[in-house]
């Protein structure tokens, strides 16, 4: 296939772009209340769905930019910047006009990506225990949950996310949001979510988003998701 035969050339060009982009990302390393969490595994760990290069760019550059831009927006707003992220995102309407969009976009981006890294790096498979029971109760079957989340991701026009939401009682639901919006902004909680911005999948899947959202299950860490489920029910899930 012609696309793969040019892969070597493509990666060569990408290497110089990566060097340039690192310089760009570091132009404004605003110190502030929020920090980029390290990936909880090697960037190779999600190879069953996401290539190493994408993991590196996505975490080290895209997510880092959200953190830097969030800190920059909050620089002169000390009290607001002291709020936990999950609380900050419920107060967008109360923020000054000058920083509301920046906090929404970059705070949402920081929360979404922090969750995203946390629930990957696993072997895929199926959930078990109380979480599996909740999925059967609320969706009928695990396969139905998979299909519904994939559909939410595939039909999110443009940039955005598909989420499984969780209530304090442990009820599960499906949500899709544009750009970096999240159910956290309405006081909800996210059990897990998949990034369907093109940057999440373009290097390996190009325009084939549906292939990405199907393969993505291969790297979900159900132990990590089960911990989030328990935390949501205990009222301790921050973001």
């Amino acid at each position, binding site marked *: 296939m012609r*696309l793969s035969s*040019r892969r070597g050339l*493509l990666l060569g*060009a*990408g290497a110089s*772009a*990566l060097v*340039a*982009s690192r310089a*760009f*990302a570091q132009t404004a390393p605003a110190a502030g209340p929020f920090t980029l969490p390290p990936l909880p595994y090697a960037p190779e760990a999600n190879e069953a769905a996401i290539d190493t290069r994408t993991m590196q*760019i996505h975490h080290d*550059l*895209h997510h880092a*930019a959200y953190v830097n831009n969030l800190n920059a927006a909050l620089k002169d707003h000390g009290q607001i910047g002291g709020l936990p992220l999950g609380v900050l995102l419920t107060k967008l309407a109360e923020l000054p006009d000058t920083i509301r*969009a920046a906090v929404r*976009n970059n705070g949402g981006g920081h929360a979404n990506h922090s969750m995203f890294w946390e629930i990957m790096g696993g072997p895929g498979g199926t959930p078990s225990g109380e979480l599996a029971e909740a999925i059967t109760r609320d969706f009928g079957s695990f396969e139905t949950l998979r299909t519904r989340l994939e559909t939410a991701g595939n039909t999110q*026009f*443009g*940039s*955005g996310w598909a989420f499984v939401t969780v209530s304090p009682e442990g009820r599960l639901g499906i949500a899709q949001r*544009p*750009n*970096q919006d999240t159910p956290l902004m309405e006081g909800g909680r996210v059990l897990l979510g998949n990034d369907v*911005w*093109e*940057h999440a999948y*373009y*290097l390996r899947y*190009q*325009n084939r988003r549906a292939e990405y959202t199907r393969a993505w299950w291969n790297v979900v860490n159900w132990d990590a998701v089960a911990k989030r489920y328990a935390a949501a029910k205990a009222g301790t899930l921050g973001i």
Partner: protein
Amino acid sequence: MAFSLPPLPYSTTALAGQGMCQETLELHHGKHHNAYVTALNGLVESKGLAGKSLETIVAEAGKAGADGLPVLNQAGQHWNHVLFWQVMSPKGGGDKLPAALAAKIDSDLGGLAAFKEAFKQAGITQFGSGWAWLIIGHDGKLKVTKTPNGANPLSTGEGQPILGVDVWEHAYYLDFRNVRPNYLDNFLTKLVDWDVVEGLLKSGGMKSGQGA
């Protein structure tokens, strides 16, 4: 009449030396743009689009707000990409603009450098997917603006685009990765065919020739 994918006005290798590689053009035109055309044709019957021009469909979908989004997403993206392919060319780029366009940019936007900076900022600050535009506003003056996803200045009623740049990540990810500002710089300095832009200025905007 069905909507159709117009051929690129140059080969898929033609812009590789100017920052837009063959793989980008093959995917962007042959897959992304083509998918919008296919999806739009699939809406003609259910949404009652038959007999209407693409421009009318885009404007009406924009006026319909949230209810119009399913049509606007596909129709707007079809129109947007038809314009996008036209405003780039292998002989594009440079700072020597044709006289009438240069004079108009000088008088309305404070000169080429100021225009480029405003256009680049519009592209950078369009959060997520979307487009940045140079348009003829209803007062006849040039204006720089931006729209999300598949919208455009026809759907918002702002005016007639004479230049547009796609800032969906698919437009630049293979060539520039996450660095959208470099893509926009490259577009303005190496890809824009200013003769085409002046032609659109003189004709009052693009007529796609597409309809249902």
